[in-house]
């Protein structure tokens, strides 16, 4: 699948934002957040800004961005619609949390509601991909936990960058290990899993024997090949996986440990940026490594994986 910039920004930035909301809620329950008056406001608004930036970026790849409001209507059947509804709704408890923090109010309850809404939004986002049967690298049980863990991990790191302190940093370090492990097992799974559909089942000609394309319907590229026929060399994929793990998980952990030792805000911000960059590469791979059954019709030349 073509790794579109707008959709990668959407899932990485909004994932971090909603993850921040979750930890604002959870750490609030345990009284593990700094009590400064500015902190809750800054952290909540940063979380909402990240998620809003993601939702805004996603409209850039639309053919008709001015009609985007229509996307909230089909929540009964469409995960994309559910993501839109939940994402927009999360702003309410998010802003209410900032207001309650500043003016005084039940921040714990509001924080938990905001966190729950954020988590549900990320889950809907994951289900958009996990429900697409033609793409086997997406339609599996690894995708939902991966999205949730990466959102929680990047959220925790960004909360540290916003000044959340030791508890969030420790959660970030633990989640880095868990999320990296989840990603690794996802990669092992997609490498080992066999395609469900074949060129024989796609054409129904398997009874005659092995099927191979003789002539394509068109001599030039078309929408299908550009959008669904994106091919990335296995060699590059392997290297990029290692880069994603190092930049996105190992580097932030080292920076967080240094930050804990010398209490450096610069370290925390650098960790957050590294995590975002690493997860950006991870998400790029999530698209680039995904193969669509339509490429079967164009033969092995296209169905590289």
């Amino acid at each position, binding site marked *: *699948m073509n790794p579109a910039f707008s959709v990668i920004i959407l899932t990485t930035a909004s994932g971090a934002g909603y993850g921040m909301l979750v930890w604002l809620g959870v750490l609030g329950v345990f009284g593990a957040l700094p009590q400064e008056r500015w902190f809750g406001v800054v952290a909540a608004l940063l979380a909402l800004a990240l998620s809003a930036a993601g939702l805004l970026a996603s409209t850039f*790849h*639309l*053919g*008709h*961005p001015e*009609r*985007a409001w*229509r*996307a*909230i*209507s*089909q929540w*009964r*059947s*469409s*995960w*994309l*619609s559910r993501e*839109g509804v939940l994402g927009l709704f999360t702003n309410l408890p998010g802003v209410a949390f900032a207001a309650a923090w500043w003016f005084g109010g039940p921040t714990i309850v509001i924080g938990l509601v905001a966190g729950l809404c954020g988590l549900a939004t990320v889950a809907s986002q994951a289900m*958009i991909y996990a*429900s*697409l*049967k*033609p*793409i086997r690298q997406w339609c599996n049980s690894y995708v939902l936990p991966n999205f949730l863990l990466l959102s929680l991990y990047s959220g925790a790191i960004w909360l540290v960058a916003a000044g959340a302190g030791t508890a969030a940093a420790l959660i970030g370090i633990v989640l880095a290990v868990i999320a990296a492990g989840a990603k690794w097992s996802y990669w092992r799974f997609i490498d080992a899993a066999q395609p*469900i*559909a074949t*060129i024989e*089942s*796609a*054409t*129904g*000609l*398997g*009874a*005659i*024997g*092995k*099927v*191979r*394309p*003789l*002539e*394509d*319907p*068109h001599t*030039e*590229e*078309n*929408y*299908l090949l550009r*959008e*669904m026929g994106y091919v990335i060399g296995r060699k590059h994929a392997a290297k990029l996986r290692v880069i994603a793990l190092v930049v996105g998980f190992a580097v932030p952990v080292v920076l967080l440990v240094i930050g804990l030792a010398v209490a450096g805000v610069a370290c925390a911000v650098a960790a957050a940026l590294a995590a975002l960059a690493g997860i950006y590469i991870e998400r790029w791979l999530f698209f680039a490594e995904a193969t*669509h*059954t*339509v490429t079967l*019709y*164009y033969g092995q030349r296209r169905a590289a994986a």
Partner: protein
Amino acid sequence: MTDIPAPGAKKLGLVIDLDTCVGCHACAVNCKEWNTSGHSAPLTDFNAYQDHPDGVWLNRVHTYEAGEGLDSRTVHFPRSCLHCEQPACVTVCPTGASYKRAEDGIVLVNADICIGCKLCSWACPYGAREFDEDQGVMRKCTLCIDRIYNTNIPEPERVPACVAACPAKARHFGDLGDPDSAVSQLVAERGGFDLMPEMGYKPVNKYLPPRQRPKPAAPVETPRAATGVLRWIDRVLSR
């Protein structure tokens, strides 16, 4: 509404005969011709008369080789929307632009409310939907609703443009929900099949397999090699 309507009795669709299709692309060309000025107009082309032409087509004709040696076949294979009974392209649509009609099962896009998110094209295993980069909306086969119900054209022409154009009569249009219809009979007779049944989309369109090639006749018994004068006569007569 992107919920799938309760299955109706009527399931309009196509039956494509892979035995008789000659791969002339007339169906694809007539489809483009009709639909670039019909319900889905325009079907945009970029660089139509230059290098790297690019554009929306609702029907694409592939050609495959299947099998090995004497048993191998060359098969021409038109690919278009199958108007599935479980169309995920419809349920994933966030706006309700993509829908399946209860009355005849045709899957359509309302281009006036499509936001062009392309998710429906990702959800289709068959690559039936193509994005119109110029108009910013998704395009797909309409089964020529503007022909099949069009009372302004003579009745024999009220079939999809691809069916009307086929010179080999490899394309058949009808109600696959009615077991007594000509198309249903044809599917039953010839062992019509679904494409990628493992995906669970339950396509309405069916494909008919290439017929078995007749067994080659038994080799003619070669006469005993002649000798002498007979050999000479044989050689003269064989000239």
